[in-house]
């Protein structure tokens, strides 16, 4: 009995100590880092990456938690790469609204998305090339 109490006390102490180091996070990151890791490990599994980012955003919004910086933009870019340009633009705008520090980059990303959307919309002969091109965020040639 005594040893058990002692052991419990030690365990409780360890918990307190560990909690002192590993603080609760301010933002709700969920599996953001894990989704990046998996994306770099298996880049061909794009659908899972897009879905993972979407899930984190949904969790934050539905539970009223704090949205991490960069998350709207990261998801917006994943949509951009999928060619889902109007959706991408709406997420770049959300990022810009929430984080004034992102304004320069988000303005750029919105412009690029609009440019790409208009390219896709106009000459049908050129559309396939644009659709299969590289991520082309800044639309520059190497």
């Amino acid at each position, binding site marked *: 009995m005594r040893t058990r109490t002692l052991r419990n006390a030690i365990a409780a102490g360890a918990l307190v100590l*560990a909690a002192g180091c590993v603080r609760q996070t301010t933002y709700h990151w969920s599996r*953001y880092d894990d989704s990046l890791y998996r994306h770099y490990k298996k880049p061909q599994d794009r659908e899972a990456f897009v879905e993972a980012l979407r899930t984190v955003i949904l969790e934050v919004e539905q539970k009223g938690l704090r949205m991490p910086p960069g998350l709207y933009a*990261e998801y*917006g870019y994943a949509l951009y790469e999928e060619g889902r340009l109007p959706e991408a633009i709406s997420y770049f705008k959300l990022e810009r609204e929430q984080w004034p520090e992102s304004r320069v980059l988000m303005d750029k990303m919105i412009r690029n998305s609009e440019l790409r959307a208009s390219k896709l919309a106009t000459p049908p002969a050129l559309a396939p090339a644009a659709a299969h091109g590289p991520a082309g965020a800044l639309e520059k040639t190497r």
Partner: protein
Amino acid sequence: MIRRISTAIALVALASACATVSQKDHSKLHAAQPRSILIVPVVNKSVNVDAPDYFLSTVPIPVAERGYYVFPVNLVKRVLEDDGLADAGLVHDADPTRLAAMFGADSVLYVSIERWEAKYVLVTTSVTVEFSYVLKDGRTGDVLWVDHERFTYSSGDGGGGLLGAMVSAAIEKASPSYMPLARQANARALSYPGPGFPAGPYRPEYRQDWAPPAGR
């Protein structure tokens, strides 16, 4: 008895990990007061080709939790690639003020992998990670903060006897556990008070947690 001693050792290790506070001069960081941090792709000095991308995935969370706006690392990486900067070495050698202007960032964080390796001796696996961190001012290019971390983990000295050790070595040979070590290194590099930097504008203690300059 042995278990109790090992618990005690673990407790001491935990306590000391929290308590170590190194003195660092943060005056440049205080003067620059960056609100945002651009984390650029990781330079790799190890032989493990996958390490930089894997490691990159662990960096944004602890940095953002310090209260700074952190640019989306994957978006940044792809934009740089499309701009002809696919090689992280080129990015690290580029003018920091130009990089910062390109993204509208107040500061740029450069992380390099010095070591990312596993060694197998008999039934023991030892994994070592070593990183260097440099934060530069986006307006002047000045170095605002530096840090260096190394963590090692050895298996085989735990429980389970010889057989247990062999099993864990076999498992880890297939996939050594770098990621928890990498996270630990980041957590330590960014801890404050400690080697990390003071709170950014998105933390309540912003501008109130500045340690008095050392030696005064």
